[in-house]
């Protein structure tokens, strides 16, 4: 290393200069930044598109809008905002049913595969769940209508007969649950649909739990369940929330399955066993879109904006939950 001594301070010798792949390195960084930025640009484009398209409907008076758009009926007191209100409620209600049913079950499945099932079996089951996560929603819709809804009807009748005093399960006036095309069914089908998603992601997360922490818990005399609560859940918390959000995202935006199953209506009721009470934003858009005229499409896109907003709020909530104790995060 004699050359270094003769070199002036300002110019470091080549062996500390940039490494051969330095260009690739900075290129990769730029590339990944560009990918992120592309998303921003796409979103800006989508947002602009949405706003521009929704603007005419949003700025029109209810009366005026009702004249052009057939599905808004000012004579029945309807306005765009009011419909959006019903739809937001319906969307949240149905997604909530789905999430309440799906999350515990999914976490259970994920744990079963990661910590309970024998190793060989677990691999096979993991594969099965992944496959089921891949069943397209159209198929869930077809199956839901053809098989599940008729099957559920007697259970609903049972619920209505014996638990009808709970407002949630109140039957229609006739006392007869004559169709299963209700919010509950939509919720159940959505739950079945998102179970594989939530459990597939949670499983991957649970499998990453450091052995070190699992052993620490077990060595203290924790039972398997206590070990899971001490080591696995805290470690996988952010991942579980992320998985749930993925599932919820799908539930919130699901169109076909809801459309095919629910007998839609617009109310703020809790009656999940009665038809004509609820609808979701995505399904409503799909119901009205084919026959909608220009202003109609504009109104529907305004409703799409509302769905946007809901998803956003829900995700922000999730991020907040995760970040609340981020210094205690498991990864490092």
């Amino acid at each position: 290393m004699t050359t270094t001594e003769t070199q002036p301070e300002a110019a470091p010798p080549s062996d500390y200069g940039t490494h051969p792949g330095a260009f690739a390195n900075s290129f990769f960084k730029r590339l990944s930044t560009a990918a992120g930025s592309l998303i921003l640009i796409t979103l800006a484009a989508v947002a602009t598109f949405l706003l521009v398209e929704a603007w005419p409907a949003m700025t029109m008076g209810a009366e005026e809008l009702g004249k052009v758009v057939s599905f808004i009926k000012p004579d029945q007191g309807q306005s765009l905002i009011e419909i959006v209100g019903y739809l937001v409620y319906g969307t949240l209600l149905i997604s909530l049913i789905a999430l309440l049913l799906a999350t515990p079950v999914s976490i259970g499945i994920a744990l079963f595969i990661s910590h309970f099932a024998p190793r060989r079996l677990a691999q096979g089951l993991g594969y099965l769940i992944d496959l089921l996560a891949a069943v397209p929603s159209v198929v869930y819709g077809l199956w839901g209508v053809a098989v599940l809804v008729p099957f559920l009807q007697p259970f609903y009748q049972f619920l209505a007969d014996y638990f009808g005093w709970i407002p949630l399960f109140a039957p229609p006036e006739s006392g007869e649950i004559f169709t299963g095309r209700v919010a509950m069914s939509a919720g159940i089908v959505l739950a079945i649909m998102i179970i594989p998603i939530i459990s597939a992601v949670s499983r991957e997360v649970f499998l990453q739990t450091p052995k070190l922490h699992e052993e620490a818990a077990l060595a203290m005399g924790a039972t398997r369940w206590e070990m899971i609560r001490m080591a696995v859940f805290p470690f996988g918390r952010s991942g579980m929330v992320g998985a749930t959000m993925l599932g919820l995202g799908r539930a919130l935006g699901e169109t076909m399955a809801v459309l095919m199953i629910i007998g839609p209506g617009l109310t703020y009721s809790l009656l999940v066993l009665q038809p004509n009470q609820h609808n979701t934003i995505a399904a409503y858009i799909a119901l009205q879109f084919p026959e909608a005229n220009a202003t109609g499409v504009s109104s529907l896109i305004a409703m799409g904006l509302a769905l946007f907003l809901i998803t956003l709020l829900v995700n922000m909530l999730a991020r907040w939950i995760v970040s609340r104790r981020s210094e205690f995060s498991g990864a490092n």
Partner: protein
Amino acid sequence: SPTNEAPAGGSTDESTAGTTTESTDGAMEISGNLQGAGASSQESAMDAWRAKFQEANPDVTVGYDPVGSGGGIEQFLASAVPFAGSDGLLDSEEYAAAVERCDGDGGAYHLPMYISPVAVIFNLDGITSLNMDAATIAQIFDGKITKWNDEAIASQNEGVELPDTTITVAHRSDSSGTSDNFTDYLEQASDGAWPYEATKEFDSAASQKVGYDGTSALVEGVTSTPGAIGYADASRAGSLGTVALKVGDAYVPYSAEAAANIIAASPLSDEANGENDLAYAIDRTTTDSSAYPLTLVSYHIVCSQYDDETERALVTAFEKYVASEEGQAVAAEAAGSAPLPADLSAHVESILDEIAAG
């Protein structure tokens, strides 16, 4: 082995593209792509028309996106397709937009191509037909009549044993031309028993009603729910019971001929764009008991003038086939629609002949 493989269509960026050449015997040899979009009610018939037309003109590919009447009109007005299928009529704004869209000042025409009776279907064990007037139907669908053995129904059906079951009303939950025609019938013919306006969206406020997305789901729903009543394209009634409507003094069951007759009994709409525009204001209140008033008339909307000769040739050739006796027969067979009366068919063809390329 591939029995019906066809070469991928040429450029469809343009919804029509192709050539017309004068062949020696003077008939037009046409080729290219013709793309339409619109009502899904016509889809089965359109499948048949397209298939047969392509068979006769091997160089032509016809496509049809069943995006719904609204979507079809949108695309037509945006010059994305040269014709649209629609269950309803253009409103005044759309008429105005069509003048912009079409070459020249002639605007657009409605051509009634698909006439189909809508049946009121029900599921009652052992009963295949019931008589009802519009007011009774309106009260049932409004939730005012809730039992099958209600006096209003029984009085019109002497000798039929009606059960004491609850009536479940099945309706379309999506926006649809069928709902539009059905509610239009109730509004016009029920003497005020139907308090609402005709719309594409069936009002679902009352209980004991349940909405279905699309005809298939609705028919399945009625079929699987004893005591249910609904409405659907008559060709889909299957083994379900159907209602004979009271027209004048008689009860008229649906039939293709009766459905076609309503056209003759109806005037053109006030808003129609001249006499070549066959936009009908269907008269549901007709007392002519050879006609079945609950009929859906689905149109093809075309320009009165196209700026491209090829486009014009393709559109008119196809539409002529659709309107022809053969075309109507094919649709009747495949989709159960009612063939156009011969004079109407000829009228449509003559209108098509007048469509010009600018």
